[in-house]
């Protein structure tokens, strides 16, 4: 019996070490160092991403472009939007270092496509990013109806859009080609999850970041591409 108790104590100690270690490790007490971090020279990716149109924010001539492939119904995209995008916006986009582009990669269902169509329709009135912010700020469970046509029209109304123009554009289906081509482009680039970010330097070097990763990763990528 004593041996069993001793073994139990050993297991519990090991558990405490594993759980405590994991907690300490993930809570940021250990540095996430990019000791030998280098961007890949996948210039094909940069060429593919330079094709077509995509809404962007930031300086047109910024030396680095970040392209996000996302889905307005994707909870991970929403998590990144809420926690990391403000830091990217504040430190990289607003400072003129980065141009941030959005490309939809709609796989959660028809409501994702409707959300993209509505955002593009809002973009015709210069409010793509307001609509983008509004969608992520109001995201709910995927396919629960929160981004169906009726709600999207209500969102547009709340943003003060010209509803006649919005409805006409939103319901015309004119953006279905763009949405399909973005989806195909994403697949061609190897996007298998959202959000996926391609950080592209002026020389065509590309860093791919997949998932809800912290701001520090984006900063390191931008620094490595700009040599700063």
């Amino acid at each position, binding site marked *: 019996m004593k*041996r*069993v*108790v001793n*073994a*139990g*104590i*050993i*297991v519990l100690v*090991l*558990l405490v070490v*594993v*759980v405590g270690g*994991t*907690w300490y*490790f*993930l*809570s*940021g007490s*250990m540095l*996430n*160092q*990019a*000791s*030998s*971090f280098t*961007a890949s020279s996948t210039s094909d990716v940069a060429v593919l991403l330079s094709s077509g149109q995509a809404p962007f924010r930031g300086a047109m001539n910024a030396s680095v472009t970040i392209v996000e492939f996302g889905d307005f119904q994707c*909870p*991970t995209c929403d*998590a990144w939007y809420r*926690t990391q995008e403000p830091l990217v916006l504040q430190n990289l986009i607003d400072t003129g270092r980065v141009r941030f582009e959005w490309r939809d*990669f709609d*796989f*959660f*269902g*028809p409501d994702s496509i409707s959300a993209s169509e509505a955002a593009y329709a809002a973009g015709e009135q210069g409010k793509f990013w307001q609509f983008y912010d509004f969608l992520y700020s109001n995201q709910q*469970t*995927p*396919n629960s109806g929160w981004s169906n046509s009726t709600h999207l029209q209500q969102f547009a109304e709340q943003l003060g859009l010209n509803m006649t123009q919005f409805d006409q554009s939103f319901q015309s289906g004119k953006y279905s080609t763009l949405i399909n081509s973005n989806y195909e482009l994403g*697949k061609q680039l190897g*996007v*298998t*999850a*959202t959000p996926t970010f391609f950080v592209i330097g002026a020389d065509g070097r590309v*860093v*791919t*970041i*997949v*998932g*809800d*990763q*912290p701001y520090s*990763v984006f900063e*390191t*990528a931008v620094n490595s591409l700009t040599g700063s």
Partner: protein
Amino acid sequence: MIMRLLVFQIFRNPVYVMLTMAIMIGYCVMLLFLDQFLFIQPYFVAYMPANAFGLLSIDLVLSVLTGFVVAVSIHEIKSNANRAGGAMRAGLIGVLAAAFAGACPCYYLVPILAAAGGFGGFLGLTGIFFSVYEIPIKIVSIIILLAAGYGLEKAARTKCTLT
């Protein structure tokens, strides 16, 4: 109280301590990766978002229980041929519960499943279901693993009573 559980007797053998730890750590790393606490691209990153305490705790509990239930089941199968069926069932339940829970963070899988099955297809909808109900499914998996552990302990006590 916990120390008096008969199933802990397997830890008299260091091999089972190591086996438990290996399953536990391996499964834990997999869950941490799938739940985006760990990233390997563009470089190794360990990151815990501010609101992810609950999910991390669930992952750690799941890993511990999975390691324990699977190791005890293997021990029972190897050491007691007469009762191997019951242990095998408990082990299988443990593995299935762990796999069920591991399938939850379909963050990496949903787009692939959706692309494979098309919008509204079974695969895509299954992936989205697992993704949306990740935490409740993981809690159910914990309950199943606890039940499997209880079954193993009960079986061990029955064995002691009979002998």
